[in-house]
C-alpha cells in the first residue's frame, strides 16, 4: 500500500511544480482548464437536451473518424483531424436517428449499437494499421489520453517567440470560437434547447441548431481527445455541467460555474496526479467528480433545512432562462 500511495510531501506536490517545473505545469493545467471549459460549455446544452449519452457516443466514435482520415491522408494535421471527427460525429448522430426512427429498436439501444460498432471498427482499423506501420493514433491513448505529453510537443513559433504547444493553442482557439458562438447565438441555443416547439413557431430551424451543436461537440471532443482520451472527454462533458446544474437553475450562471469548475478541477487534479503519480487527466476528472459530490451534499443539506430562509424563486425576467421545477 505504501508503494501505491506515496507519502504526501507538501513541497513535492504543491510547491515544486510551480517553482521548478513551471514551464511544464502551466501547459498541463492550461490544457486541463481549456478542455474542461470547452467540454463543459457544450455539456450544459447536452444536459438540457438530455443528450449526455449522445456525447458519450460521439466521443467514442471519433476514433473511427480519426483513423479513417489518417488512412486516407497519411497524416494527422488539424484540418484532416477535424474533418474526420466531424464526419464521424455526424455519422453517429445519423445512425442513431436512423435506427431509432426506422426500426422498433428504442433510442437507448440505438445509441449503444451505433457507438460501440463504430468504436469497434475504429479499434480494429487502428490495430490493423499498427501492424502495417507506425500510426500516430494509438488505442490506449484513446482511453487514457496523455495530458502529460502536452508540454513536450515542439512549440509553435511566431517569429522568434515560442507561443506554446500546438494542441494547447488548438484547444484555445476552439474554446474561444465556442465562447464567441455561445455569446452570439445565446438566445437561439437557449430556446431550441428548452422548448423546441416554441423555437419552431418562432421560425428557428431546430434541426440546424441540433446539428450545429453536434458539430461543435465533435470539434471540441476531437481537440480534447489526444490529451484526455475518449472516455474522460465524456467526463469533461458531463461532470462540470452536472456540477453547475446542481447549484443553479439559471443557464448563464451555470455557464460561468462550469468555467469555475474547470479551473478548480484542473488545478486540484494536477496536484493529485503528482501526489499519486497517476494519469493527470484521470485525476482531474476524479477531482471534478468530487466537486459534484460536494455540490450534491450541499444541496441535499440545504434541502433539509426549513424552507423559510430560501429566497423567493426567479423573477419574471429570469424565468426565461430558468429550468422548469
Amino acid at each position, binding site marked *: 500500500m505504501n508503494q501505491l500511495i506515496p507519502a504526501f510531501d507538501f513541497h513535492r506536490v504543491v510547491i515544486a511544480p510551480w517553482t521548478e517545473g513551471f514551464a511544464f505545469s502551466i501547459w498541463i493545467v492550461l490544457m486541463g482548464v481549456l478542455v474542461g471549459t470547452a467540454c463543459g460549455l457544450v455539456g450544459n446544452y447536452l444536459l438540457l437536451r438530455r443528450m449526455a449519452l449522445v456525447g458519450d457516443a460521439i466521443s467514442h466514435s471519433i476514433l473511427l473518424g480519426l483513423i479513417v482520415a489518417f488512412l486516407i491522408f497519411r497524416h494527422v494535421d488539424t484540418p484532416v483531424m477535424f474533418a474526420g471527427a466531424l464526419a464521424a460525429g455526424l455519422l453517429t448522430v445519423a445512425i442513431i436517428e436512423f435506427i431509432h426512427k426506422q426500426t422498433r*429498436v428504442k433510442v437507448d439501444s440505438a*445509441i449503444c449499437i451505433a457507438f460501440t460498432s463504430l468504436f469497434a471498427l475504429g479499434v480494429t482499423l487502428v*490495430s490493423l494499421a499498427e501492424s502495417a506501420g507506425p500510426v500516430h493514433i494509438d488505442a490506449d491513448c484513446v482511453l487514457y489520453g496523455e495530458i502529460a505529453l502536452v508540454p513536450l510537443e515542439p512549440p509553435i513559433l511566431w517569429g522568434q517567440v515560442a507561443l506554446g504547444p500546438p494542441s494547447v493553442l488548438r484547444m484555445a482557439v476552439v474554446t474561444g470560437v465556442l465562447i464567441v458562438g455561445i455569446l452570439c447565438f445565446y438566445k437561439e441555443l437557449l430556446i431550441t434547447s428548452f422548448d423546441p416547439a416554441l423555437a419552431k413557431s418562432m421560425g428557428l430551424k431546430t434541426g440546424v441548431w441540433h446539428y450545429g451543436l453536434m458539430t461543435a461537440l465533435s470539434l471540441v471532443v476531437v481537440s480534447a481527445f489526444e490529451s484526455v482520451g475518449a472516455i474522460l472527454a465524456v467526463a469533461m462533458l458531463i461532470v462540470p455541467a452536472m456540477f453547475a446544474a446542481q447549484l443553479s437553475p439559471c443557464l448563464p450562471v451555470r455557464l460561468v460555474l462550469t468555467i469555475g469548475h474547470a479551473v478548480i478541477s484542473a488545478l486540484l487534479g494536477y496536484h493529485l496526479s503528482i501526489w499519486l503519480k497517476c494519469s493527470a487527466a484521470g485525476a482531474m476528472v476524479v477531482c471534478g467528480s468530487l466537486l459534484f459530490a460536494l455540490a450534491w451534499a450541499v444541496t*441535499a443539506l440545504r434541502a433539509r433545512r426549513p424552507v423559510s430562509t430560501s429566497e423567493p424563486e426567479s423573477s419574471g425576467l429570469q424565468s426565461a432562462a430558468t*429550468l422548469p421545477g
Partner: protein
Amino acid sequence: MKARHPALLLLAAILLPQFAYAARISELTETGLAERAVRFFTLQDPSLRFALVGSILLGISCGLMGAFLVVRKLALMSDALSHAVLPGVALGFLWNMTKDPVAIFIGATVAGLLGAGLVQAIRNTTRQKEDAALGFVLASFFAVGVCLVTMIQNLPGGNKSGLDKFMFGQAAALGPGDVMLLGGVTILAVVIVLAFYKEFLVTSFDAAFAISVGIPARVFHYVLMVLLAFAIVSSLQAVGVVLVSAMLVIPAAAAYLLTDRLGMMLVLSAIFGVTTGAVGAFFSYVGRNLPTGPLMVLAATAVFLAALLLGPRHGVLSRWWRHRSRSARIGRENMLKVMYHVLEEEGFRGETVPLRDLAEARREAIEDVQVEMRSLRSHGLVTISGDGQAAVFTPDGWKRACEIVRNHRLWELYLTHAANYALDHVHEDADKIEHILGEDTVRLLEKRLNYAHRDPHGKLIPGLADIHSGGPARIHPAT
C-alpha cells in the same frame, strides 16, 4: 435451451485435462493464415479451446441479460456499468498483485453494484436526469479506474500486469479460472431466467401489473442488475471494459427485430451471442494480435445489420419491398379499373379495350400505357391483341377489375348513406380503400346497404354473378 447444458459440461470435460498445457495464442510461432484457420477448426491449441468455450459461454450469458436490457430500455445502464467496474478490476488486482479471477470478479462486481446504486441515488435525490446520472457514473468511476491502473503501472511488476487487456479484451488470455467463472455465471443466469421466466416477463413489460398481482418487481430488478453485473464482469477478460455493453445490447437488439415473443427473443439473442463470440474468437485467432472485443462487436454488428435489413417483418428491405409491391399492385388495379370504365362507357358491347382509349381516360402517353399493360399481362390479368394496340381481360383480370369497381362503389355508397358524406367528397376516399377491402368487410357493407345495385352516382355495382362470369361479354348491358 435446456439441451445446451450437457453439451457445455461435455466441452468443459474435454478442457479439464488441458489445464496444464495452456499456452497463450501470442506465443505461437509464425504460421500462415490458412494454416491458422485450420488450427482453429481442428482446435489444436488448448488456449484456443479456452478462448472458444469462453466466447461461447459469454455469448449465452450476455445474450440472455441483453434481451432484458433491450426490452426494459436499460441499454445504457450496461454501458455505464461496464465502465464503472474498472476501479474494481484494479482493486481486485491489487489484492495480491496477480490477475486472480476470483479477486477481480469480486472487486468488479462490488464496483458495478456501487455504480448502479449511485445512478439510483442521483436520480432519486437530485433533479439530474437519468442520462446525466448514467454518464456521471460511467465517467467518474472510469476516471478513478484510470488513476488506479496508472498507479499500478508504477509499481514494481505492475507494468506486466496485463491490466490493459481488460480494455479491449483478449480471448486468448482466458485461463481455466476465467472459463470456469464464465461457466458458473452462465449456468446461474440460465437457471434463474428459466426458473423465474414468468416473473421476469411480467416485470419487464408491465411493472405496475406485476406489483398488482403480487410479484415484487423491485426485487426482480435488483436480481437482474446483479446478474448483469456478473455477466459484465465475467466477460471483461474476453471483450474488454469498453465494449461489453455491445455484446449485451447488439445481439439482443437483433433478436428484438426478428420476433415479438420474449422467449423466442431470449433464445435468438443467446444464439446470436454465441455465434458472434465464436466468430470474434476466430478472427482474433487468425489475425494475430487483433483484440477480441472489437472483432466480436463487429460480428454482432453484422448480425444486427442483417436483421435490420432482411428481417421478415421489421426489416428495412423487406418493408421497402412490401411497400413497393403494394404500390405496384395498386397501380395494376387502377389500370384494371380504368379498363372496366372504358368498357362500361360502351355498354359492355365489346371485349377489347383499345389502348388509345385507356391513354385518353388516364390522360397519359400511349407508351406509358403500353408499359403498364405489359406488367398486367405478365401477371396474367390481360392479354394484348390487335398488334399490341388493344387489351382483353383474362378471367382473373376481369374478376379483380369487378371487385375493385364494386369495392369503390360500395364504399361511396356507404359514405354517402351511412356516414353522411357529401357526394363530391367520397371519391378520393374510395380510391384508397378499394384496394384493401377484404371479402368479409364487403359482405358486411352489402348487408348494411341492403344489397343495393347502384352507387350514389347511379352506376351499377358489379355483383357476384358479374364477378364470376369470366368476362365482360356475358354481363348484361347497363340499363
